């Protein structure tokens, strides 16, 4: 039977009937084409939006949690309740070793400090940080550099300030890199200026960074630090990581496992989702529109093909009177339908691709593009094509069986 697929006559018949029934062919093709095009366009655009959000916030936004130490609220192992707890650097290593799914665990310190330059001063938040912070919470530098490992190793007195801080302490256009500012009466060399992003809408304002080790030394922190920022690997749930981390910390610090006050946590992902749940909405909308379009497309094609069969019933009757078997008739209608959907689907993919290229060209350029790398995966295209071919076959089957289920004479009588 597969011989017939490669038979020139089969295709001659298909091309004849398709090319000589242009309106029908075009309508059917437009149906499938439009469905695939919308699917590719929408999925691509949605992916672009998602990419652009991911670029803006990174995993930090959706998969991070802050953890800090408080006081115990339950007596445990001979300790009274109300014991003061502190996070220790040794805890961080243990967390990283023992909890699955942690991408980064970053120890951080924060303090209020009086920042002075010449005659200008401000009361600002001072943070002691590791270079890795730039990885988990992208710091967009407008000048200079961020804290580096050398700064940490040598306890350097350098600082990276926010643009807002710069505006408070410097004149317009004034060069800041290489100048000194005083933080709590100690001189620091300004090595970088960064611009706050959307990320900085969450949590306290981070005005001035100094190396973690410098902070330790200057504020006499020893092994202890203020709070911990954990970012989970994309495939892990941050909620679970938070629970595991707190439990381990309680264990390490001899705190009752059910003490809920001992370690505090702030799940940024949850907060983020609350504020930016339109992203979820977008995904939902995409799928909804995509599926609705597909269904509508299916109905449209089905209708067109059914009309087609009605209009072709007489022709089918004639063919049967001339000796065509039902199988031969069904086969031909199905080949037509499958061929139509494949060709139309490919056109849809091509035009959809062009639309994505155009979207990328007009909306996808530059640092703060709305869409980043608007694209669909080969898998999605493959699935879309398979779905349309399967639907094409199924839809082809309906009229094919309808056309052969009646007696030839009833088909012939059709006007």
């Amino acid at each position, binding site marked *: 039977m597969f011989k017939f697929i490669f038979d020139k006559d089969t295709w001659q018949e298909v091309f004849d009937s398709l090319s000589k029934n242009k309106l029908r062919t075009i309508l059917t093709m437009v149906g499938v084409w439009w469905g695939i095009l919308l699917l590719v366009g929408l999925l691509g655009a949605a992916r672009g939006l998602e990419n652009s959000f991911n670029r803006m916030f990174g995993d930090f936004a959706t998969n991070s949690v802050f953890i800090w130490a408080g006081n115990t609220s339950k007596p445990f192992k001979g300790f009274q309740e109300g014991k003061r707890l502190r996070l220790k650097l040794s805890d961080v290593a243990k967390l990283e070793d023992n909890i699955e799914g942690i991408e980064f665990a970053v120890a951080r310190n924060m303090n209020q400090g009086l920042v002075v330059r010449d005659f200008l001063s401000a009361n600002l938040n001072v943070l002691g940080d590791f270079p890795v912070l730039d990885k988990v919470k992208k710091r967009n530098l407008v000048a200079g550099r961020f804290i580096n490992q050398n700064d940490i190793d040598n306890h350097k007195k350098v600082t990276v300030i926010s643009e807002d801080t710069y505006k408070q302490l410097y004149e317009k256009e004034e060069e800041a890199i290489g100048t000194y500012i005083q933080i709590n009466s100690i001189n620091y060399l300004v090595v970088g200026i960064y611009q706050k992003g959307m990320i900085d809408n969450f949590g306290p304002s981070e005005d001035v960074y100094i190396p973690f080790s410098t902070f330790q030394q200057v504020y006499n922190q020893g092994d202890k630090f203020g709070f911990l920022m954990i970012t989970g690997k994309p495939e892990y749930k941050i909620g679970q990581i938070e629970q595991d981390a707190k439990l381990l910390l309680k264990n390490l610090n001899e705190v009752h496992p059910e003490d809920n006050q001992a370690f505090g946590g702030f799940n940024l992902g949850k907060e983020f989702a609350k504020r930016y749940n339109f992203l979820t909405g977008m995904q939902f909308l995409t799928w909804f529109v995509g599926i609705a379009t597909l269904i509508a497309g299916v109905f449209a094609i089905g209708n067109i093909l059914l009309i087609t069969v009605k209009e072709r019933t007489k022709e089918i009757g004639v063919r049967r009177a*001339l000796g065509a078997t039902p199988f031969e008739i069904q086969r031909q209608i199905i080949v037509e339908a499958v061929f139509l959907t494949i060709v139309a689907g490919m056109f849809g993919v091509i035009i959809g691709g062009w639309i994505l290229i155009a979207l990328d060209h007009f909306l996808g350029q530059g640092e703060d593009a709305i869409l980043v790398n608007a694209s669909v995966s080969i898998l999605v295209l493959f699935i879309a094509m398979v779905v349309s071919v399967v639907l094409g076959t199924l839809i082809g089957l309906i009229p094919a069986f309808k056309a052969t289920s009646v007696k030839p004479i009833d088909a012939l009588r059709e006007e």
Partner: protein
Amino acid sequence: MIVKPISYNDINVNKMLEIRNLHKSYPIGDSSLHVLKGINLTVEDGEMVAIMGSSGSGKSTLLNIIGMLDEADSGEYILDGLPIKNLTEKKAALYRNKFLGFIFQSFNLINYKTALENVALPLYYQGMSRKERQELAMFHLGKVGLTEWSHHLPKELSGGQKQRVAIARALAANPKLLLADEPTGALDSGTSYEIMKFIQDLNDEGKTILMVTHEEDIANMCKRIVRLRDGVIMEDTKITQVRAQQYV
């Protein structure tokens, strides 16, 4: 050279078809319309039979059953020695393709295919190669005098030409029995005679022909007239054939 048959009926001939006590009714709402009420008919090889009767008497119904386009409710039907009963649609298609040629009142050409392609279609379903098909189709078109028109679409042809294409198509697969339902019904009398001339020529060559007609003059160009009334055959006579040639 065409061999003039002396008379096929006189020699030891085969039965082309045999029908015994055939009934057919159509359901109409709750009741049913009994159209054929016990038809008995035998047609031999080489005959040319006209089926006549008033409108609604069941002529087309009978012809369609003979052509396996429709099924009888009861009775026997033997075509060329084969009992036709409870055939699968696949078998029926095969028989239609091998034994039968159809000519319809409304031509029933496929409108997007050229005259040549229309004639070649039954050969396609026989599985013949493209080249052979085209040659054979061209040969049959030539026989009905339409060589020049082979690449025209049906809409570019006159009624008479369309019917000639239909005749060529019916003949393409070299059937034993030609069934024609009012083949001249849509044509003026001049064109009708022309068509009848072709059909008579075919009969002269040995094809068995069954045709339904309303017109006495057309019926008289056959060799036998069967008259239907109230679902039975009320008259069945052999006649002397009027040749169509003289009117063309």
